[in-house]
């Protein structure tokens, strides 16, 4: 029985997607070590999306039509998912998509194992308003759909629900490396919170320049809250450059529970001691397990049956803790706030009491 892995291992996105490939391979190896799925070993076919969306569509078609894989673990950016989506719907495939993303989508052919925007954002904003008394926010992002949509939701929440104020909102092209101007603007506006959704190589430039400009995040004036920097990104940024920032997402490597300790140990054993694990890597690890559970519940590898069986699937063994598939194919999950330490890890300072319901088409935030 074959499963496809479809990520970029060349091109600009390979930086981010490598971790997902590693996690998916680890999960499949563990599943095979436990005897496979329905008594059958799982083989993987890996394809390179090459950071190029038409290539993603092409490779998705190859996996579904030529290789006839039972499911595909893959994609990272929204653009790549949008490109493969018609292919999955036409050829009735099943995609397990690991990244936190902007929402506004609910396909019967995709299981979204990362958080959608409201799930990730709102708990963090509530937390800074409640615990830190934050009133004014400066929204900053890379210029594409995820940061823009996330900031749209954040702005609505800040203005309508928290009674706060957005004192600036702006976007820089992907790959931009000069942030001194925006840092000066931030000084001028004196926000309580810098809300940053910068991605990729720009991240490294932004945090290094922020630190060099004398904005010490450990003083929390302003406080920095991000939803785009996982432990994976900190490797490139350098822990000393981002120490004191807060991140809001569902998983941190430092989570203290048995599942996670086993997962981290297994990941390091397979890929090396110097590996770090971020939110998306963990979400990618869930993909094969959720698929296995659905196949076993359905008693078949048939995509229609797997889809039917998927809602309600629970995974108590997830590193992030208990998760459950919602009717809308997203996961119920907890949201956490982490405080960046100099060693490149986050210390979890807050966790929602209950699982947060995924809501890809949020009322009142459109």
């Amino acid at each position, binding site marked *: 029985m074959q499963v496809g892995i479809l990520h970029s291992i060349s091109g600009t996105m390979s930086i981010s997607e490598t971790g997902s490939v590693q996690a998916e391979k680890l999960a499949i190896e563990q599943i095979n070590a436990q005897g496979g799925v329905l008594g059958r070993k799982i083989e993987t076919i890996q394809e390179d999306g090459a950071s190029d969306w038409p290539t993603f569509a092409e490779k998705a078609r190859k996996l579904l039509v030529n290789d006839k894989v039972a499911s595909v673990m893959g994609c990272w950016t929204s653009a790549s998912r949008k490109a493969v989506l018609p292919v999955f719907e036409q050829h009735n495939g099943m995609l397990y998509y690991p990244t936190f993303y902007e929402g506004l989508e609910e396909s019967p052919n995709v299981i979204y194992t990362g958080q959608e925007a409201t799930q990730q954002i709102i708990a963090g904003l509530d937390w800074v308003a409640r615990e830190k008394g934050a009133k004014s926010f400066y929204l900053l992002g890379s210029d594409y759909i995820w940061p823009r949509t996330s900031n749209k939701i954040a702005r609505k929440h800040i203005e309508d629900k928290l009674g706060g104020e957005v004192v600036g909102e702006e976007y820089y092209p992907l790959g931009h490396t000069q942030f001194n101007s925006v840092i000066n603007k931030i000084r001028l506006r004196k926000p309580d919170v810098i809300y940053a959704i910068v991605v990729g190589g720009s991240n490294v430039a932004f945090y290094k320049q922020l630190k060099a400009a004398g904005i010490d995040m450990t003083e929390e004036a302003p406080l920095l809250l991000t939803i785009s920097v996982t432990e994976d990104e900190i490797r*490139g940024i350098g822990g000393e450059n981002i120490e004191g920032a807060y991140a809001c997402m569902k998983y941190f490597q430092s989570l203290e529970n048995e599942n996670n300790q086993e997962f981290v140990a297994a990941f390091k054993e397979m890929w090396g001691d110097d590996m770090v694990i971020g939110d998306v890597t963990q979400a990618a690890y869930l993909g094969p397990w959720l698929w296995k559970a659905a196949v076993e519940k359905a008693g078949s590898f048939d995509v229609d049956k797997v889809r039917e069986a998927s809602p309600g699937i629970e995974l108590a063994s997830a590193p992030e803790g208990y998760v459950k598939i919602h009717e809308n194919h997203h996961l119920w999950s907890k949201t956490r706030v982490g405080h960046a330490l100099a060693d490149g890890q986050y210390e979890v300072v807050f966790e929602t009491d209950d699982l947060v319901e995924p809501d890809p088409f949020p009322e009142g935030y459109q």
Partner: protein
Amino acid sequence: MFSGYSLPELGAIFAMQGFAGLILFSVFVLMALGLAIIFGQMGVINMAHGEFMILGAYVTYLVSNAFAAYMPALFGAYFFVAMVLAFCASGFLGMAVEWAIIRHLYKRPLDTLLATWGLSLILQQAFRSLFGAREVGVTIPEWMMGSLPVTDLIEIPINGIFVMVLALGISAAVYVMMYKSGWGRQVRAVTQNRVMAGAVGIDTERTDRMTFGIGCGVAGVAGAAFTMIGSTGPTSGQAYIVDTFLVVVFGGAASLLGTIASAFSISQAQSILEFFLSGSMAKVITLLVVVGILMLRPQGLFAMKLRK
């Protein structure tokens, strides 16, 4: 946008913004100097320029790791060693590339573009195979990461000052080499008339190789410096390529002074626009203005008069 601020506050912000423009200027100068030598003097379109820069950045990464492991006491000074080694690594690679590829293509400048594009793909994959697809974190010595409080309100980043000093130093060095040394005379002679230069006894092949090597070496130093402000990954180099070429072309390709003047005007325009507009729009408008001016004045700001 400025209501509710006291005059000193505004003054401080503008001073810091002016400084931000100067840092951007220095970054542009560092990016473009190597290319100004290669493209401006030799007419070679080196699309792998960004990869030569990233090679310098990776050398810095290796040196910082070596210092952290073997000489932690001297860690604060590793950066200077790294810059020298980055210059050597990129320079030698450049000379090798010149010998293997470029020297066969001097009569076909557009073809150097294609060949060096292929080279950039190979280098990117080499970085990826050697260092992994992820960005590497280069630890910068503590003394370079802080900021210098000039007044209560004005703080100036030390790495910005460092980049500026470096840009000035390298510009001066290149100027002296090009205009005050015997080697520079040879380079300029070869640029202006290859056949005559050969006829009067200049070893044109050696001159070409040295010129290309030095251009790449300067790119390597720039790459080493950029570890302070940017990222180091296999494909980071591509982010610099358009800006770099535009700075050189805008300046008038054959003129070093032009390159510096153009770096200054583009960086100031961009930094002022960034302050009043959003980042993306600032970038688009700057590029549009530069392209627009180039359409009106294709020879760039400073053109050297040459007989065809």
